[in-house]
């Protein structure tokens, strides 16, 4: 174990004021640990943060108890990773003392913490994000080596590359092909540096740092080498920057300004390459390609679809799919971000805006339950594009294609004024006053037990609590959230959340996926599991509908038979599960809607108990919720109340749908009065008697809780359309018209209500650790009989899951393009 003093040396030796990060004065005496309870917090920084290169990703670290916050400057993420991978005493970086005590082992598979509680394990994971690709050279954890960068000597852990050593020293090395999350290719040669006693410049990204190396990054030789590389790269790169969508955020453009020559010597004709068709999402202009192969490595390493490859050699080298083939991954849009030039750009965004005209808003995605951090780029009232934001604990720097491309649905099928259905069957636009009094009239004509409130997939926590309070005040407890089943257990938080956390899944070594198609339900969680499979050689078994998960897995059948066998210990997989160090069981959306859900969950709990999936330091029981509204709805108790008579649906006379679109019109009695509050004229709007237009997630500040229990907020990027209102305001206004006025007039007052009902929703950007796993406190409801029917597919078409997607043209194109392919 490297003690803090050595770590301090590393940091000190960099000498650059910009990187002098010792977080708090307490850390300065590095042998002294910070005070008990100091929490290391990571503030996500936008991806395009550094002045000139998108590839340099930073995460800013600060200590919440830091007495001198202004002294908290940045630590390059790569350094954090490198340090963590070599298990340097993290206490010197300001982590809590419980982390310090945690024994840590390292190796090519990254960090596995044990002991010290789940909380500390999570903090370690923050530091220990292992790159998927590169095999980290196994190093004796105690060993550091001394190298010198531009005359400053510094101690670095053994196994770092020259490029990482330069980063530790605060020298930024230009690069195109090197990406910290991908394997090392070393083919762009942009990162050339001079090393003493070598005959020629070396590619720093691929060269391991050796003891006593004298690295020089600012000599005339290096300058000339970079200039030469840049000249070669620009030989065949077209001069179409003015019409290129990457213009303004292009690594090649930026680096040629900084490192390139002011003139070229090229007079020949440029080569041209035929564009490839990668589907409706990614536009290719292959002549612009500089063959960094980042897209190829992303596709094969992270997305797990070996669709892209390099064809030809030398002057005829091309990136392509060999035979005409679409890129069939839910993560394919990320190749747009990692492409350093304009070869791969967004097809829907093509020629619509320039990057500098856009207003950026940091927000949260709602298309699945993971709560990916996104940046909404808008121009005026229009959302122009959505790109990911760095958050190591949620989405790293990736987002799914649905997140990225369904934004055009926000412009179509919008409800922009209140409407009332007239006797002829047509919807008449009316004022808010008329619409609300029409609803109030209907409310007064029915008994509370004949009412019901249903929350849809995209509802924010504010509107959920408002609707719950409103209906409860009327005496109605007949409330449910669509997509999580009627008899969900919302009592114990750890029984409906992803307890292992999204980042924690990486550390697991055996997975049992029950009734879930992770790839479709949460593509980024699937990427994390894939990471565990690649790095830890984790074994994965699925019980549920067969699906290509992009990694090797054992299909144990689609019914409950295998589940019962594992619970009885008769299945070979049960020994694998019980021997696992970090087993993970994920229960997915295929289970929620089953009539024998309680019995299935009882069997799962038996497995969890037998295999000790939940331990003191590891909680491997996970429920993967399907939609963004689910976790908050369960935390707020938006489930059928105890007094709710489980009437058959025929008795309902008044139905309040808060963006609930999956309820079938046949399930609603003909004479029921249906109020639809939402932002899209989707399925349920056709049945509604009154339509109350709400705001979409890009237009409001809404609180959402992800499936791992992380509370996050969206921020308004564009104004709401027409006469629409924020959702909680509509319910608050309606409550007054009905005569049961809700006691909050501002959004902060609604959030104050969270404090009373579910305080974790008040603490934004924090992950509330799940409650303790109840040991036989709750009686197992194994009374119901388990059926052997197969688990259903919760998502049939990945691209069409909510009202925004269904209004999106891009998503419709994806649906038709991928309809014939069996995986999607």
């Amino acid at each position, binding site marked *: 174990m490297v003690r803090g003093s050595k770590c301090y040396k590393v940091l000190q030796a960099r000498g650059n004021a910009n990187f002098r990060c010792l977080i708090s004065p307490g850390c300065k005496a590095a042998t002294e640990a910070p005070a008990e309870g100091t929490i290391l917090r990571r503030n996500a920084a936008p991806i395009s943060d550094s002045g000139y290169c998108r590839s340099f990703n930073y995460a800013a670290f600060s200590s919440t108890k830091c007495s001198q916050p202004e002294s908290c400057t940045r630590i390059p993420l790569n350094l954090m990773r490198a340090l963590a991978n070599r298990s340097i005493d993290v206490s010197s970086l300001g982590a809590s003392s419980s982390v310090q005590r945690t024994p840590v082992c390292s190796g090519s598979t990254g960090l596995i913490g044990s002991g010290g509680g789940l909380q500390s394990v999570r903090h370690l994971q923050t530091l220990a994000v292992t790159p998927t690709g590169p095999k980290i050279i196994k190093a004796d954890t105690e060993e550091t080596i001394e190298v010198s960068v531009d005359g400053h000597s510094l101690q670095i852990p053994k196994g770092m590359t020259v490029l990482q050593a330069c980063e530790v020293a605060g020298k930024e090395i230009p690069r195109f092909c090197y990406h910290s999350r991908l394997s090392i290719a070393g083919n762009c040669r942009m990162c050339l540096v001079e090393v003493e006693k070598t005959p020629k410049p070396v590619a720093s990204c691929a060269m391991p740092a050796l003891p006593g190396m004298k690295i020089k990054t600012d000599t005339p030789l290096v300058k000339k080498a970079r200039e030469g590389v840049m000249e070669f790269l620009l030989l065949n790169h077209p001069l179409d920057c003015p019409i290129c969508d990457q213009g303004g955020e292009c690594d090649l453009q930026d680096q040629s300004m900084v490192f390139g020559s002011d003139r070229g010597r090229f007079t020949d004709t440029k080569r041209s390459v035929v564009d490839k068709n990668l589907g409706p999402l990614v536009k290719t202009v292959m002549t612009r390609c500089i063959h960094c192969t980042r897209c190829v490595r992303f596709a094969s390493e992270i997305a797990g679809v070996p669709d892209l490859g390099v064809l030809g050699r030398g002057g005829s080298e091309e990136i392509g799919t060999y035979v005409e083939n679409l890129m069939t991954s839910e993560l394919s849009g990320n190749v747009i971000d990692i492409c350093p030039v304009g070869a791969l750009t967004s097809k829907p965004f093509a020629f619509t805006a320039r990057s500098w005209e856009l207003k950026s808003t940091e927000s949260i995605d709602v298309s699945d339950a993971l709560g990916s951090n996104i940046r909404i780029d808008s121009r005026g009232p229009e959302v122009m594009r959505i790109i990911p934001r760095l958050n190591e604990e949620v989405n790293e720097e990736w987002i799914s294609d649905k997140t990225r491309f369904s934004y055009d649905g926000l412009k179509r099928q919008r409800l922009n004024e209140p409407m009332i259905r007239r006797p002829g069957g047509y919807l008449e636009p009316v004022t808010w006053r008329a619409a609300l009094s029409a609803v109030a009239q209907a409310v007064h004509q029915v008994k509370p037990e004949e009412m019901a409130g249903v929350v849809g997939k995209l509802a924010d926590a504010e509107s959920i609590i408002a609707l719950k309070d409103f209906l409860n005040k009327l005496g109605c407890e007949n409330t449910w959230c669509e997509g999580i089943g009627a008899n969900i257990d919302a009592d114990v938080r750890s029984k409906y959340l992803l307890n292992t956390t999204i980042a924690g899944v990486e550390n697991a070594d055996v997975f049992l996926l029950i009734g879930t198609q992770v790839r479709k339900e949460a593509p980024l969680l699937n990427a994390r599991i894939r990471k565990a499979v690649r790095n830890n050689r984790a074994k994965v078994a699925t019980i549920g509908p067969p699906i290509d998960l992009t990694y090797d897995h054992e299909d144990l059948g689609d019914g409950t038979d295998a589940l019962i066998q594992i619970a009885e210990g008769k299945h070979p997989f049960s020994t694998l599960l019980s021997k696992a160090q970090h087993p993970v069981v994920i229960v997915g959306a295929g289970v929620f809607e089953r009539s024998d859900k309680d019995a299935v969950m009882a069997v799962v709990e038996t497995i969890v108990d037998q295999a000790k999936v939940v331990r003191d330091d590891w909680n491997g029981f996970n429920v993967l919720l399907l939609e963004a509204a689910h976790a908050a709805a369960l935390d707020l108790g938006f489930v059928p109340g105890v007094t709710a008579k489980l009437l058959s649906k025929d008795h309902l006379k008044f139905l309040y749908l808060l963006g609930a679109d999956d309820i079938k019109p046949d399930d609603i009695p003909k004479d029921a009065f249906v109020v639809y509050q939402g932002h899209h004229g989707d399925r349920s709007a056709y049945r509604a008697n009154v339509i109350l237009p709400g705001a979409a997630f890009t237009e409001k500040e809404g609180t959402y809780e992800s499936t791992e229990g992380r509370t996050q907020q969206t921020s308004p990027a564009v104004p709401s359309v027409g006469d*629409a209102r924020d959702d909680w*305001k509509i319910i*608050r206004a309606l409550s007054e018209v009905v005569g049961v006025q809700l006691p909050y*007039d501002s959004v902060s007052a609604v959030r104050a209500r969270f404090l009373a009902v579910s305080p974790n929703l008040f603490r934004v950007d924090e992950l509330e650790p799940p409650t303790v796993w109840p040991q036989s406190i709750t009686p197992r409801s194994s009374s119901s009989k388990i059926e052997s029917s197969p688990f259903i597919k919760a998502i049939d078409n990945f691209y069409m899951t909510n009202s925004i997607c269904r209004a999106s043209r891009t998503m419709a194109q994806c649906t038709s393009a991928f309809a014939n392919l069996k995986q999607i």
Partner: protein
Amino acid sequence: MATAVRATMTRGSSASLEEAKHRVVDFFREVCRYLPSIMDRYNLYEVITPAQLRSQISAQFRKHSDVTNRKVIDLLVFKGQEELQYCLDHAKQRHHLLSTYVVGREGMVQHNKLGVLDHGESEFLKNFYQSNSL
């Protein structure tokens, strides 16, 4: 070229309050003389009668009935002449006249009356009916 002559016409300031008032009345009469042609060219017969329009315009005059400073009166008359000139030159379009003289400024603000009327609602509900941003 009556309009061309009018556009170049300027006068010195009034010597007395009486003269200023006289100029106001003269100007009002002038406006009234032009009313039929304005109604015609902006196609206003379908939305308002000449008598109504005349009373709308006289209301604009009365708005300033408390002004006693002759220089201010002169300036208001000048601005009125300018406005008339714009109407005659077609520097305005139909909706400009509609919004200023036919429905009036207040009528153009949506739901304004609804918000003002008091039905015993809370402040929240009043704001809710008016706009999402209040």
